[in-house]
Structure formats: C-alpha cells, structure tokens
C-alpha cells in the first residue's frame, strides 16, 4: 500500500467515521444519549474527505477506483455512508447513524489491516468502456444499500429480542421501533434491488455485444445475489416474508453477498482475466 494523497485522504475519512463511532459509544455509555448532529457532522466530514481520496485514486487509475479489494471495500463504505447521509435525517432512527458508523469502521479496519488487498494493477480497471464502469459502480452502490439494509435488520432483531425478553434498559433503550425499522428496511430493499437491476441491465447490453469477455463465475454470483434480493422483495410485497424472518433473511443475504466478493475477486485476479474481461458481474474487483 503506497501512502499517497489518495490513501491518506481515504484513511482520514475512515478515521472520522471511527471518531464518530467512538464518540457515540462514549456518550451512550456516559450519558445514555448522543447528540445526533455531532455524529452526523463527523460522518459527513469523513464522507467529504473519503470522496476526495477516492477521486484522487480515480485520477491515478484513470477510472472509477474499483480495481482491487481495497478499492471495492472503500467504495462499499462510501456508498453506505452516502445512503445514510440521505436517509438518516429523513428517518431519524435511533442508533442508525451509530450502526452505520460501526459497519463503516469494521470494513475500513479490514481494508487497511490487509495490505495485500491494495495490490497494484496496471491499466484502467474496466477497460475503455464507460458503460462497464457505470455498471460496476452501480452494482457496488447497491451493495452499500444492502449493507445498510443488513444494519437495519440487525437493529430490528435486537429490538425484537429486547421486547421478547422484556429488556428496556441499557443499550436496548435506544433501539428504534420495530415498525419504523421495517418500513426503512423495505424502502432500502426496493432501492437496492432497483439499483442492482439497472446495473445488470447496463452490463447486459455490453455482454450481448461482447459475449467473449464475460466472466461466468462473476455473472453467476451477481445474478444469484440479484435474484435472491428480488425474491425477498417480491415475498415482502406479497406479505409472505416479514418481521423477524425478513430481518434474518436480509442479514444472511448480505453476509453471503459479501463473502461472494472473495471468489469473484479471486477470479478477477487470474492472469488470464485481463482488465478488458472485467466487463460484467458484481463486483468487478
């Protein structure tokens, strides 16, 4: 990992997320509440600095920075933070900012703790086609939304547990209500599925034109994740999957989706899958 302006800025942005998370923990433990605007300001500040870092990295690689695992994880952090900054003030869910910062910090620590994730690569990550770049960035953006969906599902499960076990003290006191959390989850599910659908639609146009460039493993994982989330959405809208079962499904699906990044990225790392081959599928790492 080379410590250029890009990495330092990304690191500083991640540090602000970390500060926000620690600030929230400190205040929750000490005074049992935290000023939301301070956390929001720290996350917004971190987001601005991270955006600058990502932009600098983009200039270096002459494209959207999603060429290795470090960049992919940072793009997911960037996406989920963006969604929080948009959705946070609208929903004002307790602990939503806190849990978003927590997830961002966890992913950030992982991305910096494994230096090999930021392995150098040559050329543009997605070849000359801007459409593939657009497709990949939308796909990763949907991962950010699904990440937030997993966080709201976790909050739902914790609240459900606290209500079943009659726990109204400590941490449980600050959890958002079940109905509000589920409403937010459904909206994020709709948003995530929509973005991933558009991403696949854009990618499929390129795939039809250049079938030889398709990495079938990536395609298989991506379409599986898309179908799974789509199925969850259909079942939810048809009132067949809801409450605790919906939350568990969304949480499990996100874990599967994140774990699937590994084989997908490994397949990209093979020498024969040249940059031009990273034409379709999620994520193009």
């Amino acid at each position, binding site marked *: 990992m080379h410590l250029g302006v890009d990495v330092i800025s990304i690191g500083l942005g991640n540090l602000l997320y970390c500060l926000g998370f620690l600030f929230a923990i400190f205040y929750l433990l*000490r*005074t*049992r*509440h935290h000023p939301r605007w301070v956390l929001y300001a720290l996350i917004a500040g971190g987001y601005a600095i991270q955006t600058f870092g990502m932009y600098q990295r983009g200039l270096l690689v002459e494209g959207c920075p999603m060429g290795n695992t470090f960049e992919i994880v940072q793009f997911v952090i960037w996406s989920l933070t963006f969604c929080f900054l948009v959705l946070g003030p609208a929903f004002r869910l307790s602990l939503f900012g806190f849990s978003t910062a927590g997830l961002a910090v966890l992913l950030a620590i992982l991305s910096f703790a494994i230096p090999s994730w930021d392995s150098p690569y040559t050329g543009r990550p997605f070849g000359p086609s801007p459409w593939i770049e657009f497709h990949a960035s939308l796909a990763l953006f949907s991962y950010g939304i699904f990440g937030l969906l997993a966080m709201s599902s976790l909050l739902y499960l914790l*609240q459900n547990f*606290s*209500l*079943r076990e*009659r726990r*109204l*003290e400590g941490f449980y*006191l600050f*959890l*958002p*209500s*079940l*109905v*509000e959390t589920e409403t937010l989850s459904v909206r994020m599910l709709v948003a995530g599925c929509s973005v991933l659908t558009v991403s696949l639609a854009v990618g499929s146009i390129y795939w039809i034109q250049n079938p030889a460039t398709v990495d079938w493993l990536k395609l298989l994982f991506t379409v599986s994740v898309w179908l799974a989330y789509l199925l969850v959405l259909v079942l939810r809208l048809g*009132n067949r999957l*809801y*409450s*605790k079962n919906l939350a568990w499904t969304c949480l499990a699906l996100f874990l599967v989706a994140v774990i699937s990044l590994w084989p997908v990225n490994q397949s990209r790392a093979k020498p024969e899958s040249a940059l031009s081959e990273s034409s379709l599928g999620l994520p193009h790492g």
Partner: protein
Amino acid sequence: MDNQAQALFCWGVSHHTAPLDFRESIAPTPPQLEQIYALPHHCDWLHELTVLSTCNRLEVYGTGYGEIEKSLTVELCKILQTDVDPLREKSALKFGKEALSHLFAVTAGLDSQIVGEVEITGQVKQAFLQAGKLGTVGRKLNQAFQRSFQTTIWILSHTRIGIGQISVATVAGDFVRKIYGNLGKSTVLVIGAGDIAEKTMAALRSRGVRNLILSNRTFANARALAEANQGIVAPFDSLNCHLITQVDIVVCSTSSRAFIFDQSQIQQIMKRRTIRPLCLIDLALPRNIDPTIAILPNVFLYNLDDLAKIAQSNLEARKSEVVKGMDFIDKKSLQVMQNINRT
C-alpha cells in the same frame, strides 16, 4: 451580623418530616399564599421570599436576618391557622449552602417521593415566577433559583435519574412505543374501565395515541371513560375477531376469571392481520389473556408482573443515581453560595 442579615434560608415541611394528614392541614389556600407573600412587605427581618407549595411539601425560600425560625414559624402559624409547636416540630430550617443544596435537590427531583419525577421542576419554576410577579425576589433568590434550573439540566443530562418509567402504565406505554414508534396512527382497544386501565390510557394518549376504543361489561362505565378520553365505545359482546383485527394494541383489565383471549383466537386474528404486529397488555388479576400467546410470532404480550418488575428495577436504578446527582449539587452549591455572598 451583616452576613447573617442577608442569610439565605429554606424553611419547610415535606414528606420527609411530616405525614400526609399534617401536610394537608397546612396546605395554604390562595388567599393564605397571598398573605405569606405579603410578609416581606411588613416584616423587617425578611427581605426576599418564594413559596413552594405542592402535595408533598410546603417550603419557604428567602433571605433574612435574626431569629428566622422563631419569627417565621409564628407568622406562618397565624396565616395557616395552626399551632406553633407541631409546626416547629415537623419543619426543618436550613441556611446558606445547605439551603441552596436543598433547593437544587428539590428542583432536580432528587428529593421527591418518586425520585426523578420532573413535575417538581415545573412547580419550582411556577413558584419562582409568582414570587417574581409579586416583587419578593431579589438578587440572591434570583441567582439561587436560576442556578437551580441550570443544575437540574446538568443532572438530567448527565445521570440516569430520569431514565426508565416507574409506573406500570408508563412502562406499558414504553413497550408500545418500542413496537410502533409513532403512535398517531395506532388504534388501541381498552377492555375494562378500572383505575389501571384509565392510567394506561392516559400514558398511551400522552405518547400520541389518538384512536381509542373502549369496552366494558358495564356499558355506562365504558361510555364515561370514552367521553373523558375522546374515545369510542364498543359493546362488550361485540369483542370479536373482526374488531381485534382492526386494532394494534389491546389493553385488558377486567375482573373476568376466565381468559378473554386464548391462543387459537389470536392465531386466527394474526392470519387476518397480515404483517402488523399485535401488542397485548394484560393488566388484570387473574389474567385475562392466555400467557401461551406470547410464543406466537409478531405478537407481544405483557402482563402485570412483567411491567411491575421493570418499574421496580427502574426505580432502584434512579435511587442509585441520587448519589451522583448529590455529589454534583454539593460542589455546585458551594460555588454558587460564594457568588451569592459576594453580591
């Protein structure tokens, strides 16, 4: 004696020093209160005065000189038409920092019968405003009361004194809010018209519930309660699956010896409700709702025992926070007292 001439004092009878019947006997009527407020105008030894009169205490805060206890007790006995000896016996007089600490503790709810209740803060503010209007507040009392409000804010935000509900009705309200969040669109069905049902209804209304349906074996009781709470009445024999399907929260507190709802009934109801959770609050003894219902998905059942245990544990937690609050008050009152003495 000049310092003593300007001594800050607090004279009071409270739930710590006197039983309820005595407190009732000395509770001042509005004309008596006016007479007490008139004291600084014709008593040379009294400079400033604020009277705090609540169901748990009658306290006089002021500045003055000389034998305040004797003089004040005599004057109050004349106004309140009571004997000197019992009043002297059941009252307590504090000066300087001790009086200031007491004012801070009272304002923050640390000295209340229900520790942490914030209604007292409003009552202290009211008393201070009234004294201000009547011109019996000078620089010293003004500083003392202003600082007491600031101290209250610090204590409420830095301790857990006000966290957690301490009555069955308000704990039930908290559970309901944890399920539905905004209660403006939730519909509540209350079965039974007893005291606890009424209190729970008040707790739910204060949390935003607008749609109330009441039902009771005695229709007239349900109607009276509905009128008082802007609800509607459902005849007791109309309590069927269709009605329960329409509501979000059911509060039961009837004297029925048998279950009003059993598991199979609720299962049927849940099939029709689709995805909305159902909250059942059973405040009756013997219980009105089959406890095995609690295992059903999307159904949340709380009975009197569940709610009372939480209320009790919250009360214990509040009491343990008093020490933290009093430590702060001790430091703050010393600092404020030094400022007051300088003025």
